[in-house]
């Protein structure tokens, strides 16, 4: 399993569930129902300010585990963990699971 963080683009459906992913210029689609969880964010180390009204995403990151396959239909499915930072509205790729790491 590889651990790193780099930008990734995730498109969501109306109910918030991820639909498609663009990563390193390539498009991927989901092949299984994604799983979500929320991971602790240490805002006291990362934030300079915490005024009232910051909204969601200060105390946690929204995380999704996605089973992806290339939109072109080639290659093995692989899974990634992506995080969404509600404060900056940016997606990051944080983990690439073993299967793909080997093949990549």
């Amino acid at each position: 399993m590889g651990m790193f963080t780099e930008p990734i683009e995730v498109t969501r459906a109306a109910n918030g569930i991820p639909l498609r992913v663009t990563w390193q210029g390539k498009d991927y689609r989901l092949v299984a129902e994604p799983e979500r969880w929320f991971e602790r964010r240490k805002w006291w180390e990362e934030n300079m300010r915490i005024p009232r009204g910051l909204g969601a995403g200060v105390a946690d990151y929204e995380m999704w585990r996605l089973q992806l396959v290339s939109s072109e239909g080639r290659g093995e499915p692989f899974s990634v963990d992506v995080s969404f930072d509600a404060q900056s509205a940016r997606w990051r790729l944080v983990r690439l699971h073993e299967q793909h790491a080997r093949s990549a």
Partner: protein
Amino acid sequence: MSFTHLNVASSYSAHYGVSTPPQLAAAAHAMGAEALALTDRDGLYGAVKHVAACLEHGLRPLLGVNLALLDTPGRAAGRIILLARGNSNGAGYADLCRSISQAHQAPHGIPGLTRRQISHRVSAGNLMLLVGGESDVARSLVRGQYVKARALLADWKNLAGPMLRVEITTHLSTRGSRYHLGEAGRMLRYADELGLKAVLSNAVRYADPDGAVTADLLDSARTLNSLKEMDSCQPNGQGWLKSPREMRQLASEISRATERGWMRKLLQETESVARFAVLDPASDLGWKKPVIPEASVLGLHRPAMQELTERVYAAVPRLLPGEKRHDVEKRLSLELGVINRLDFAGYFLTVAETVKLITGLGVRVAARGSGASSLVNYLLGISQVNPLAHDLVFERFLSDTRTTLPDIDIDVESARRHEIYRTIFDSFGEERVSLMSMQNAYRARGAVRDAGAALGLDDGQVDGIAKQLWRFSASSFREALAEKPELGELAERLAADSQLDILIDATERLDRLPRHISMHPCGVILSDASLLDRTPVQPSGMGLQMSQFDKHDMDLMGLIKLDVLGVRMQSAIAYTLEEIARLHPDASAVARAGGHADTSYIDPAGHIDLARVPLDDAPTFELIRSTHTLGCFQIESPGQRELIGKLAPTEFNDLIIDISLFRPGPMQSNMVKPYLEHRHGFAPEQFLHPDLKPALAETHGVTVFHEQVLRILDTMTGCGLGMADVYRRHLGNPAQEPAVEEYFRANAAAKGYSPETIDKVWEVLAGFGSFGFCKAHGAAFAVPTYHSAWLKAHHPEAFLAGIWEHDPGMYPKRLLVSEARRMGIPILPLDINRSTGHYRVERIFEYAPAAAPTVPRAPGTLRLGHYGVRLAFRDIHQMSEREVQRLVAGQPYEHLAEVRDRAGLSRRTYQNLAALGVFDSLLSGTNRADTIAHTQSMARTSLPAKYRPGPGQLTFDLGQIEHITNTGAQLEPAEIIRTELDLMHLDASEHLITSYRQRLAHLPITQAIELLHLRNGTEVLVAGVRVATQTPPMRGGKRVVFISVDDGTGCIDATFFDDTQQRTGPLLFSTRMLLIHGITRRTGPRGISLQALNAWDLHQPETLPAAGYLENTARPHPSYRPKLGQSPAETVGELARRMNAEGLDQRGAQSM
């Protein structure tokens, strides 16, 4: 389908919940919920606010509690929730209250219930038990102890049977932490296996996601760990009040991890529990329905109304001998009619019964507030003011338009308050009485400390900031930083240090959140035997049970609250009367001592019945007019002394007016100036309309009292005094005032008043707003004001002792030393054989003829200098009450060895007493300095207890075994004063300022006593000890700081405007000994104050100005100068601010 949150903590779960009940209800309403539960930790502290907020938003309320589950040693093994069954005629709610009260009786400090107790509690079917994410089951699951978890759940099933629901919660946290999806799924599976029903919750702690950060801060404060060190609190920030759609999505995720079909079941079961628990406020909670003690408890053998009527008529001949029968009957039929229609007779009898209990203890009682408007109250002995004599309006207190119980507040001697409470509990019975509680919320200081600790900031730095946060709310902290010169240094640091920015944000988040409840300083709840079914109680600091509800909850819950307020002045008066009787043990001796021509109010044993003292005593008013009113109730503050000086009261009604004028309303709406001008005949009286003359004559046409507003409204619209009081309460309320204006204009016009008159009168009414003052309240307050002044004029020595003993005022005790000097009363030093634990008046046999005192004494009183006040052992630093008792019990002492032998003092106390000269009278041939040296060289003062003689054993007379060496050392006066200040906070031997005279010798210092003779606008330097600092709250404008200093000849009140504050910086609040440069401003015939231009710290001689300062052209000049001959408008505004700062309503009341 809607979703009902069954597990919701509000901010009333102290150090846990973030949002207030109204915020939660508003959020639930906004997302389309139909019902909402509140399940705060440990109690129903927020329950009434929750129900009220739900009703406002059309939500159906549910109530429950989140309680610790205690294991056998009394430790918390998890937490569970109990939900009250609704629509059960209060049975569910009653069981909830009883369960909570029981939880607070847990023996080991942690409130909670054992499994067995819970089982017993739910057995009646009135409480639903939720075992969920905080339970012992979930704890085991998180630890991976699956077998144990299943066994625990099975055990719950046995204990609670059909009343058990498994509560499933997921915050979609990471694997291995609480509220993880897998844990929720596993719990649901176990429930299914055991055939238990399950509900879905979100274990809510905040209304929206933004609250997660605040919850982290609260977790840190609760667990006393910094955020960095904290690992066991919320796993992420998902504990908010999620929408029905979001909750359905969670249910779907849980069902995907278990069985697809379970989603529907989970949601349905949640709603079915919600239906079980929906409360009907009226039938379940007794919403807004007052409950009074049973007739049998009040000793009634006939209907309450009949009893009340007969009692008041029976008291007429005794209490109203001089009033016309017709007036009395007319008034009583009005009052009794209203009381009868509202069915409040039982309430009045309850209050009367309580007052009877208190007076039965021999305690002084005085009713305050609008209750004094009622003749019924006067005849029942509840109030001491005859409303007919002072023309008080009953409708201001009670009328048919009012549906809630009126407040009757009772002032008692503060020193005996606890004794009174115990008596009330004993006579009504514990099942009917409880103390009221109050919520203590985070204020700026506490918030910054906890925020700093959470962020792991340096303690010293945070402490420094906390100390500066003097009377700001945290939310105005940033603003304060920008504006306050004394925070300048901090503001600079802040700019340099980014950590402080986040600290302020965190502080603002914590600000005003509830921290804990405590006993309300005066509220006692009286009810019938169902009280403990209607409020949970917990032990108070003094041991008696205390309701979890606060004063805002009382009316809504139908609870009758009586304010039994401890007032130190009442204790001081009681003590003074005791001293008078002790010194002069018969009526004629008292009359001689006090210069009383009339002895009708003195009993044969020398006790004065103040209630019978005439209210027109000339020497008393002379004293009041002199403005030497330090120690007198309500009229001792600088602002009041200024007003008294201008008003020059000559009769009791003037005192009522004075007290009523000294309020923000009259001050700000400029009533004082016209009133004073008309009063002193500088300007002719003007009435808004001749019809209003009867209402306004007593205040020369100026509207001062609520009662006058009622009469104006009634006269001009014919609305009746009862409705007039309703309209009065709407004045000043932006939402309601326009309707009042419309009504007033239309009806006054219909009665033929001209548009000009209507405009003028409305302007007065609108300007009056809701402030102004209730004359009945002023009258009730004026009684102790008059009594204290009367005692000060006639029995100054005893009065001073009383003031010293109970310290009722706003000033530090040391100012009273100066006052004693001005009164010409010797202060007798501490003495081993003459001092006791109390301040006593003492006859002086070798007196020196004293100069005429500054403070007037009534003619014919004791000759000056024959009596003095002996200082007491009680206020000596580090001397315990038990040491005082032992020392006094061992009196008299012949030599030091006896003190060592009998008094059992700690070494430190022994040394302190020596330093204060307590042993001086035992010395022969040596002096105080020698004794001090001696006590300091001693290894230990007293024998260990086991070597001390026991009771019955003879003490071996050691004789003068202590050998004190004559060292020849002498103490400097300055040294003696410093010791007195350190150990007693008093400078008894001479004034503190004396020792600073040397370093001020090069400057022309003006004394307080000389100030009054100076012209307005004279530039002076004054020096003194700070005695009071007042900072009125800023209202948009610049802050003004008032500092009073005392220089031994009197008090000097100095006003610091913004430019001067900039000049003086931090010393404004931190310095004790001040040199002030200022300009005199005359405030009245007997009043003068300073507008300060600069100030220095006397402890920093190097910073003091050089000789010739007042000629130095570089010295500051006033940037604005009040017009010569005074500008009353400015003075009035300033008085208003000053008055505000003095917190009139609170003074005299205190919490212990």
